[in-house]
Every structure is written in C-alpha cells, then in structure tokens.
C-alpha cells in the first residue's frame, strides 16, 4: 500500500459477518463472558426481553477493527480505534463492516478512517473511527 495511491473518500473493502450459536459460544468462552443473553435463548427472551440471542457489542467492535487491520495488513499500524454500540444486533442477522478514508496527512503518513457496521436494514448499529500510520 502506497500512501500516494490513497484518496479521501476511498472505500475500505466491505466484509459480511453472520454469527452462529457456535461462533458466539467460542467468542464468549475466549473472552470469559458468562452473560446468558449470548447463549441461553429462553432466558434472553423471557427475562431480558430481547427478540433473540444478542451478538456481543465488543465482537462487533472487533469486526470493525478488522476492516482496518485486514486493509493495512503489514503496511501500517493501528494507532487509535473507537466505536459505539448504538443498536443491538441479534443471532440470524447478517452484518456488514466497512468504512472510508476521512483524511490523509502526507507529512506524518497518518490516515483517519470512518467506520461502520450496518444491519440488513442498512441501519448503522456500530459506528467507529480509527487512526493508522502507514509505513512507507
């Protein structure tokens, strides 16, 4: 990746994610999160009144960070990253993660990105931002 080839407004590759019961189990086991809304359907619906098993907010945060890490690969470093879980997402939904270049500083090689996760209704569930430094 050469910074001279990048331009403001350029889109990052979009990736689709569809969580399954199994992938959510593996994720919550890996981070040691025993919250029942991620695996106990009866509890999730009857006690916490969600329509379905809930996809973890930080898992969507990770997917959002991957739009950046996969794009820069070994050509740069992620310096800063932020996100906000504005809308819940549920098992069965297919989410799309993407973003675009907001600014490029050719003196410091620092690029600012605006990121999003959208659901199938094209609602942004998780907006985010990132700052990366390109190596060249």
């Amino acid at each position, binding site marked *: 990746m050469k910074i001279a080839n990048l331009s403001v407004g350029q889109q990052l590759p979009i990736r689709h994610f569809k969580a399954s019961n199994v992938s959510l189990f593996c994720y919550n086991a890996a*981070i*040691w999160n025993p919250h029942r809304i991620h695996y106990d359907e009866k509890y999730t619906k009857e006690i916490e009144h969600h329509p379905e098993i809930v996809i973890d907010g930080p898992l969507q945060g990770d997917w959002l960070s991957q739009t950046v*890490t996969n794009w820069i690969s070994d050509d740069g*470093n992620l310096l800063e990253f932020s*996100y906000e879980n504005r809308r819940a997402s549920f098992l069965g939904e297919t989410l799309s993660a993407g973003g675009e270049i907001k600014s490029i500083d050719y003196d410091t090689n620092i690029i600012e990105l605006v990121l999003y996760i959208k659901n199938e209704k094209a609602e942004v569930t998780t907006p985010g931002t990132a700052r990366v430094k390109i190596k060249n």
Partner: protein
Amino acid sequence: MNDLVSEEARQWIGKSDEPIEVEVTRRDIIKYSVATEQILDKFINGDEAPPMFVAGLSRKIVPIDDLGSDGLPPASLVPDLPLKRVMAGGVSFRFHRPVKPGDVLVFNRTLSNIVGKKGKTGPLIFVTYSIICETKNGEAVLDQEQTRILR
C-alpha cells in the same frame, strides 16, 4: 446539572479495581482469532494478538457460585446515581505496541470521571472508566476509555 451527581458519588472518582495480571499464551490468541474470524496469518497462527484481543483479557474470573442469575460477576466501581437506565456508551483505544505470546500484562481499571449533562430528552450522566494495560516491566501496551451513559 452537577446536582445529578452527589458529593458521595463524586468520591468514587479515582477509585480503582485490584490490578489484574494476565500471561498471554499463543493458544489464547489462536482461540480469540478463530472466534472473531480473523483473516491475517499472524493472528490465526497466534504470532501476534489482534488489537481487540487485549480488550477481552481483563474480565474478572470469579467462582461459579459468585455469578449472578444473569451469569455475570458482581459489577465493581458502580456508585449510587439517580439515573438507572444504562445506554450503550463508547469505547476508545490507543495502541502502543502489539501483544505477543509470552507477554505478561497488568490491567489497572479506574473510575476516571462522572459528569451530569442536560440531554435533548432529559438529564444524562456519563460515567467514564479508564483501563491502562502495561507489561509487568512497565512498558505501555494499551490505553482504553469506556463511557457508560445513564438516563
């Protein structure tokens, strides 16, 4: 709007949890990378941790009998505030260096601020936590800020 946050609640600002120490293994990185559907070889092979791996490392591990009926361990650093409904806040990270197998990390979580504000639909309270992650030798790894919004 500062009357929203009592003097007693304000006393919580600056309080910290007990530090959490974590030894990072290649296997833990691989588990996380598979579960989050990483693509890059360095993450899938566990040579380096994905940036958000560290964010999932500092969760408390308590005996099963101490988990609540929701499955969660007891919350800490929660002052008594007049607004109870928790809305999703934001999380921000500053990365200083990648995490690799063999790193020994120390996490310090502090309640860093409580601010009352007038929102469009009524009063809001912003509670901010900061998590500083360093290696055991004191090398900066990651600064994290998490904001919880109460309404």
